[in-house]
């Protein structure tokens, strides 16, 4: 009874009361994470895919592979191009049209992460140097947004990359024609060097809330995200006050 009375006119007061009693609105402790569920291979048409849910935040990642000429700066490497989308169906905040700022920054976050950690050595994507390479378009779509986009995106993209099966491709080096033969029966999986784990925390005054929900993110001012690999090395940090 008391909770519903306070919820509408004084959401901040209610939020503070919870934190003072060392508990959160969904009855979790401060350092407690929500239930994580992962399932690879959910999209049969994609070369690799995964569905990840952290509590009520559900993301689906689909990877489509295409053949292209490698870029002149890096002729012996392939490309992985992430794209995070927050469509209107995932939350009442987002409208249709150009991607919102949150989605754009999450996309760049993943792009930076993949480039600086070298999780997937893009040399294995190159078929013939300077001629042909794979480019992986990793699309991450949020089905339901309830906070903690970054952790879920990192998990989804890594799981999808581990799930990718690429057909063997041969370039026919005939002088007359440049034929490319693709053999669907023989597939190879990517060699994933490491699996870093992302942890996000919302900060508010002196409180640190692990794995914030959408409502907690709206109430708090700061956000910290650490990405740590298996050797306890800090790979990526983002902290905003």
């Amino acid at each position, binding site marked *: 009874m008391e909770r519903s009375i306070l919820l509408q006119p004084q959401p901040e007061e209610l939020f503070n009361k919870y934190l003072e009693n060392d508990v959160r609105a969904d009855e979790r402790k401060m350092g407690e994470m929500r239930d994580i569920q992962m399932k690879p291979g959910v999209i049969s048409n994609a070369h690799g895919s995964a569905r990840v849910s952290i509590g009520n935040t559900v993301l689906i990642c689909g990877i489509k592979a295409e053949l292209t000429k490698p870029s002149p700066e890096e002729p012996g490497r392939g490309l992985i191009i992430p794209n995070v989308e927050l469509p209107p169906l995932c939350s009442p905040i987002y409208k249709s049209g150009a991607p919102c700022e949150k989605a754009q*920054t999450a*996309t*760049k976050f993943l792009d*930076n992460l993949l480039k600086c950690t070298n999780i997937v050595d893009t040399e294995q994507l190159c078929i013939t140097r300077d001629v042909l390479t794979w480019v992986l378009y990793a699309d991450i779509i949020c089905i339901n947004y309830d906070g903690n986009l970054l952790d879920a995106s990192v998990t989804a993209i890594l799981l999808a990359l581990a799930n990718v099966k690429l057909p063997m491709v041969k370039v026919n080096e005939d002088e007359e024609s440049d034929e490319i033969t693709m053999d669907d029966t023989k597939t190879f999986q990517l060699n994933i060097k490491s699996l870093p784990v992302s942890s996000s925390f919302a900060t508010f005054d002196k409180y640190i809330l692990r794995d914030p929900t959408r409502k907690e993110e709206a109430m708090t001012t700061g956000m910290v995200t650490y990405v740590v690999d298996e050797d306890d*090395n800090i*790979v990526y940090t*983002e*902290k*905003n006050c």
Partner: protein
Amino acid sequence: MSFESKIFRCHQGYLKNTDGSALLTEGTTSVLAGVYGPGDIRESRQNAQKGVVEVNFRPKIGIPTLNEKYLEQFVRKVLESAIILEDHPRSCFYVITQIMESRGSLLACSINAAVLALQDAGVSMNFIPVAVCVAVCEKEDINGVKNNQMVVGPNKEDEETQIAHMTFTFNSVTNNLACCHQQGSLSQEMYDKCLQLAQQESSDKLKAFREVLSANYIGCR
């Protein structure tokens, strides 16, 4: 630390139409920041309790891309906590950072330029954010042995050999970390060492900020 990274030159009031501006040169990187505010904003984007900060990050060449959008959020969030926004409800601070020359430590230079522009505009702030960039680079010493060295204020050559790149922004009042961006693999001890180094550097930089302001005002009576 090379001689180049010791260069800290700021010209406040560089632009005549803005409420405040600063052309900051740190080492070999140069950023021009302009501030308009507090000013009008569309009703749909207004906040009744406090002001709003909008940052426009413009690259040296071409139209702003995703990269600029990403860096914008760091500048914006630092300024949102630094400026006393409660004094300016239903208003907006427009901060435009134009990259003039990007040869290392870009994000730190941009944050500092935005802060100096706000100071020039006379905007009241909770604290002065001081941004420092530290990189861990693979360097060869005299014997040809490769080892990892921490470089404060890396230039373009340092950034090409870097293993990790960090930008720390400190709160001048409490000396705590206000904002941080780090990419590249680092052990936790190395991370702590870089943080300490950056903290020492930030107190020197704060003195430099104060000298810039003093040069403008002391002597004018």
